[in-house]
């Protein structure tokens, strides 16, 4: 990078003109004697413009990454921060209320301009035909049929932030922006009081959660048992023949059990109805800006706050509680609200299961390549195979997983072990087991490459030392090489996990679903249900972003989920890289 070019040292003969020029330059400089060290040069030898292009490419890459990460981080972290509710009065007199979500500049089309009055047009023209506009989240989907509205600056007459506007997060229909018009506590109309409403709302939520608990846990358990008895009937029929005595006896037993369960079911249902009855006596009437009202049970309101009357601490509290809700609850409203707990759980469980499969496979192959195989044609083929495994598109693994694991292997398992459930497949469809096997196949090259690197970093002297002491080859590997290489191998595992956690395309074919009815791990025997489909953070992004009723409404959720996934993956990667770099340093002079 030095720019002092001694004329005596001409540019290398890269191209003819430069070479001749250089020779001329040398000849010219000779008679000048001591003035040789003039700071002049053939600038083309330095290639400054090309350097800038090269450096620019690198800078561009870094800027793009930074911008990308910054955008995701900003959108993700700001989503849950409570925003004020603006009351916007338009020039034509309409009122609307909503959270300002984003601003941008746009160029109103001719058809829009034609509808404007002179003042507005002048406003637009003063901006070179542009105007700013704001997207307001007006919410109230049940009344408006839409969640959002763009408002251009030239339409606005006045923006105010009235203190009595609240944001209500509801169990159904998304958010509501408006005032409280009436409150009914235990069947009696009451004056609105924030504290009172808050107290009653948390009580109502407790009741709501109680119903949820009964329905999900207890009734769920009952359903599970009834289903098991039903399968028992079917199994008895299949095993002993429908008319045989044994079968009849077993069937009668099972049916008695079912009847007992159904009685329990009725009891639980009665309890649920009781609570519901109480619930109906606590109501709230919400009023939107134009005076239309919605009457709802208090228990349907997940959270509410006076958006324009919050102190910083209040906001912080809401922010934290919304994050907690996001991380610890199940999704609602077609996944666009609520939390992602099942998706986090599914992602983690699938990845863990994947590591169980990928670890031995990857390490053994690496050992083969590094320690056992004679370098030659065979290892070359193995390397090509590894490279191909790494290069085959992930979707092809999904196709293979669906066709081979789910349909072929799963189909056989069903026929052998679960004939009573047929034609409903148990293992013969996508499930967490097949998904993790598929991903194990997909990530095995990562583990192989990393393990190989780790094995080759173990100094030769250590091996020789061990062998010299009389240890056998396997003993050397087992007690000397592997322990030394373990951190490197772990790095490979972490990288594989990061890769597996972020992969979505194959999962779409082998078992990921938008809403899993049950987690793959629960309290029923055998506790870990490898045949169940699961939710996944990556697929959640795809599903909410692209398959929900309103992608704009799902966007904040997508950004937060994206942020979560990115944090997960970046953390894994960063730790892997960190471990690797430390290892490199450790082994830099690693011979002893």
């Amino acid at each position, binding site marked *: 990078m030095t720019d002092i070019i001694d004329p005596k040292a001409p540019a*290398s003969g890269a191209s003819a003109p430069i070479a001749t020029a250089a020779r001329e330059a040398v000849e010219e400089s000779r008679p000048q004697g001591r003035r040789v060290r003039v700071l002049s040069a053939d600038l083309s030898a330095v290639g400054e413009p090309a350097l800038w292009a*090269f450096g620019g490419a690198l800078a561009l890459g870094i800027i793009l990454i930074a911008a990308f990460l910054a955008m995701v981080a900003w959108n993700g972290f700001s989503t849950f921060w409570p925003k004020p509710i603006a009351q916007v009065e338009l020039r034509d007199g309409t009122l609307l209320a909503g959270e300002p979500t984003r601003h941008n500049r746009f160029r109103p089309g001719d058809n829009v301009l034609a509808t404007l009055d002179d003042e507005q047009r002048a406003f637009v023209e003063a901006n*070179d035909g542009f105007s700013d506009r704001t997207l307001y989240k007006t919410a109230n989907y049940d009344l408006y049929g839409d969640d959002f509205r763009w408002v251009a600056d030239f339409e606005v007459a006045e923006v105010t932030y009235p203190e009595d506007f609240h944001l209500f997060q509801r169990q159904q229909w998304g958010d509501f922006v408006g005032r409280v018009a009436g409150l009914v506590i235990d069947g009696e109309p009451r004056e609105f009081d924030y504290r009172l409403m808050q107290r009653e709302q948390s009580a109502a939520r407790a009741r709501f959660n109680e119903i949820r608990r009964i329905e999900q846990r207890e009734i769920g358990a009952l359903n599970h048992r009834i289903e098991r008895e039903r399968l028992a009937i079917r199994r008895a029929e299949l095993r002993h023949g429908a008319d045989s005595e044994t079968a009849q006896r077993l069937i009668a037993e099972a049916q008695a059990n079912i009847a007992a369960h159904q009685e329990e079911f009725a009891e639980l249902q009665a309890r649920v109805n009781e609570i519901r009855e109480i619930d109906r006596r606590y109501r709230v009437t919400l009023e939107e800006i134009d005076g239309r009202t919605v009457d709802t049970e208090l228990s349907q309101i997940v959270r509410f706050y006076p958006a324009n009357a919050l102190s910083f601490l209040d906001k912080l509290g809401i922010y934290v509680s919304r994050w907690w809700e996001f991380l610890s609850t199940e999704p609602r409203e077609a996944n666009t609200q609520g939390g992602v707990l099942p998706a986090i759980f599914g992602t983690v469980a699938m990845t863990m299961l994947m590591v169980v499969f990928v670890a031995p496979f990857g390490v053994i192959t690496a050992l083969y390549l590094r320690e056992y195989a004679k370098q030659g044609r065979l290892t070359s083929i193995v390397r090509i195979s590894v490279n191909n495994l790494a290069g085959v598109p992930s979707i*092809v693994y999904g196709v293979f997983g669906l066709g081979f694991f789910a349909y072929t292997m799963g189909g056989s398992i069903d026929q052998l072990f679960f004939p009573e459930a047929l034609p409903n497949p148990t293992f013969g469809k996508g499930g967490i087991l097949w998904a993790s096997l598929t991903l194990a196949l997909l990530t095995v090259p990562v583990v192989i490459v990393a393990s190989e690197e780790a094995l080759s970093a173990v100094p030769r002297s250590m091996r020789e030392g061990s062998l010299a002491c009389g240890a056998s080859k396997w003993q050397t590997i087992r007690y000397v090489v592997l322990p030394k290489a373990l951190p490197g191998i772990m790095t490979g595992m972490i990288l594989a996990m990061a890769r597996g956690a972020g992969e979505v395309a194959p999962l779409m074919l082998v078992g990921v679903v938008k809403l899993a009815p049950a987690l793959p791990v629960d309290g029923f025997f055998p506790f870990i249900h490898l045949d169940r489909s699961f939710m996944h953070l990556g697929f959640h992004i795809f599903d909410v972003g692209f398959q929900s009723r309103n992608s704009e409404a799902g966007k904040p959720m997508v950004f937060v989920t994206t942020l979560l996934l990115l944090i997960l993956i970046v953390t894994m990667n960063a730790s892997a890289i960190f471990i690797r770099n430390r290892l490199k340093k450790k082994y830099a002079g690693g011979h002893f």
Partner: protein
Amino acid sequence: MADTTRTDAHSEDYGTELKNQQSAAAIENRLRQRSMDTRTSVKLGENVARWVITVGGLLVIVAVLGIMVFLFRVVMPMLAGGEELGSVRHQLATDQDVIWINGDEFQTLGSVVGTEGRVITFHVPTGTEVSREEFDFEGATVTAVSGTLARDRVAFGFDDGTVRFATIGFDSQSTSRRNMPPGLTELDERDRMLDGRVFTEVGTGDFRTLSAVSELGPSEQISEFPIVAIDYRVGGTRERPVLAFATVDSEGAVRVSRSRVQLNMMTGEETVTTTTVEAPPLPLEDGVSVTAVLLSGNADRAVVGADNGFVYRYDLRNFDDPQLAERRRVGDEGVAVTAMTFLSGEESLVVGSEDGSIRVYFRLQTGTDETTDGRELVRARTHASMPAAVVDLSEAQRHKEFVAVDAEGNVWVIHSTSDQVLFEFARSGDVTTESSAMIFPRSNGVMLVSQGGEMEAWQYRNRHPEVTLGVLFGRIWYEGYDEPTFVWQSTAAVDTAEPKYSLVPLVFGTLKAAFYAMIFAAPIALMAAVYTSEFVHRGVRATVKPVMEMMEALPTVVLGFIAALVLAPFVEEWIAAVLLGFIAVPTGLMIGAFAWQMLPARIVLRYDGMPKFLLMGLSIVVTAWIAYNLGPLFEDVLFDGSFRAWTTGRIGTGTPFMFIILLPLSYMAVAWGFRRSMGAAFSAKMRTLERHVAGRLDALRWLALFFAALALSYTVASFLTLIGYDPRGGFVDSYQQRNALVVGFVMAFAVIPNIYTLTEDALNSVPPHLRAGSLATGATPWQTAMWVVLPTAASGVFSAMMMGFGRAVGETMIVVMAAGNTPIMEWNIFSGLRTLSANIAIELPEAVKDSTNYRVLFLAALTLFLMTFFINTLAELVRQRFRKRAFQL
């Protein structure tokens, strides 16, 4: 690698040496007390480990081959032909000439109708008569007969000019084992019979009960002359069916009747309104007679075939005023049309002729003047010719399949879309007698009954008749299309639509996406890698490289989401600014470079490194910001105010866009010209100047060249416009929000880290002594990089590019989300696309296992696999060679 081998070999030698020493007597003496034998467990462990690890290591090969073989195994049945499962032949006691046959979907029962009205229902596998019924035709003789597509409604035309309608169908019910009546007669090992009902045991232990249903309606007088041809159709919706029939009498008069059935919702009463119109008479010469008539289900068109080789098409859209729209000769002069049928869906007209040829015609909107409605019958397909005159054509209910019978008793089952003869059967016995043939409703058998009551049935299985290699990779003329094309449309709203399984648009989409991705990714990744490897400080590299590697692990679903929901709307709104950015950012960097050259050497030396790099980044940000602000102005000046309107081709000329596209090329041309003409003199001059002065001169040179390039580019672009070239319609066309530009850009984002890391590794493995040598002889780092490092690493760089390309080919989520998923074939950078991978991701979750679509999607996966397999294997071979060479240097 070579080193380790030696180690291994060495260590093994070491082991044997040790053993040799053990056997040496001296040592034996010394260590007499202790056994020096290796314990068996250790030996065993050694062997087990060796085996497990070797097998495990080779499992990788098994995995790759296994995937390939499995995909092949799923795909192969699709391309295999069908199999014949056997045939039966029985004589039925009809005593009348058979004119109509029908069979049920399970191939259990068949019915035949005689000329005088005897209906016999029989058990197909054994030929046993199950039931019989006599239709009272009141002495008239049937002269023409036709049925609907489902064959259960039949129309008879009589010699006295009347028509009658009948139902000849089957009723299927389920009977449980407990309710089975006693006294069943055994027919064969599967079926039992009682009172005109046939019981078949089905898998679940219940019985399927089949019986014939027949009913004759009253007669209607249509003509005074015998009816020679008739066609009967049911159209409309289920709630409001339209019954229509067309007749041709012996005088050539064509009549069409349409009955609308309206169901009164309140009373449940049906009201039938029938209207009959007489169409304009057929312009037939003497001695020419009508052989067949066809009517569409909605009674909006009718086609009549005659033995002079012509078909006549009536336009009945205005039912009160029928028009003879078209008269068209099919086949050679004077070759009679002997049989006609519509394929299911009534889009394709199959015409069989006296010479055995079978042709398929589509009615297309061509705007021709020769017909009254601007449409005409166009021959779309010509199937294999039969050995003799085609005497009967009968279409299948579910596929685009039909059975053709010729005068020599050949019975062919032909699939029209894939243009293949699926099966060739031959009648036995007297093949010259007339016969009726049909395909069973599930397209798995053919039944044929001769006039004399001789019944033959063939059973076959062909799961994927609609797919051949020609369908997958060739142009096919589909129903409703103007010409043969490549189309992917595996499912449609209506059942009768032809599935279209051309993989070509998907392969095209895959390559298009990968191509545009590589346009962005390859230069950026390559240049960034060279810069990192050759020009930045070691410390900077240690941070930059992990960042890039981290980018490699970014889930593509995230990138796809950003592309589709953030980037695509932004680019759509600011497309002009984005285009300007493509010019502005490189220009900005160049300005930066030349400004840098003008600085005095002292400053340059001092701030070389990180500050310079930051300056580069700053220059990018600033120029991007300028482009964003100047975008609208740029749009106004070059594209008449709206780039998106411009792309549709309605406003402006192609000049401005070509001007932009040609700019880099013209700059290269101008620069090359300058170098050839005065490059040497200029260098010599520069050499005599001081650095900052030379820098100023160089900047001037660049500015001059830049403006010259602008002028040249604009001239060439104007010239191209002058000679009539317009890029719109080619690689630029109307703008869609989710397009190849966005996909290419974001996919580049996904591919760059891949190429970058591999390229950087390749450059890094160039031995340092080459660099040192080059620098020592006085070359600048730039010259060293360009003429020493890059050429040495070329094969490694190439392999990196290949791997990046392979990744782009297989990328799924970005394309699914941001590419619009339209399987169209155009290079337009502003239109969407559908790739093989996206297609699989979208359609496979819905595909039924082992269905045609399922197998075609597996073929798509196999194609993808083979494409990447080829690319990766090549890349890996190149890389292995490169590494060997790099070690030797």
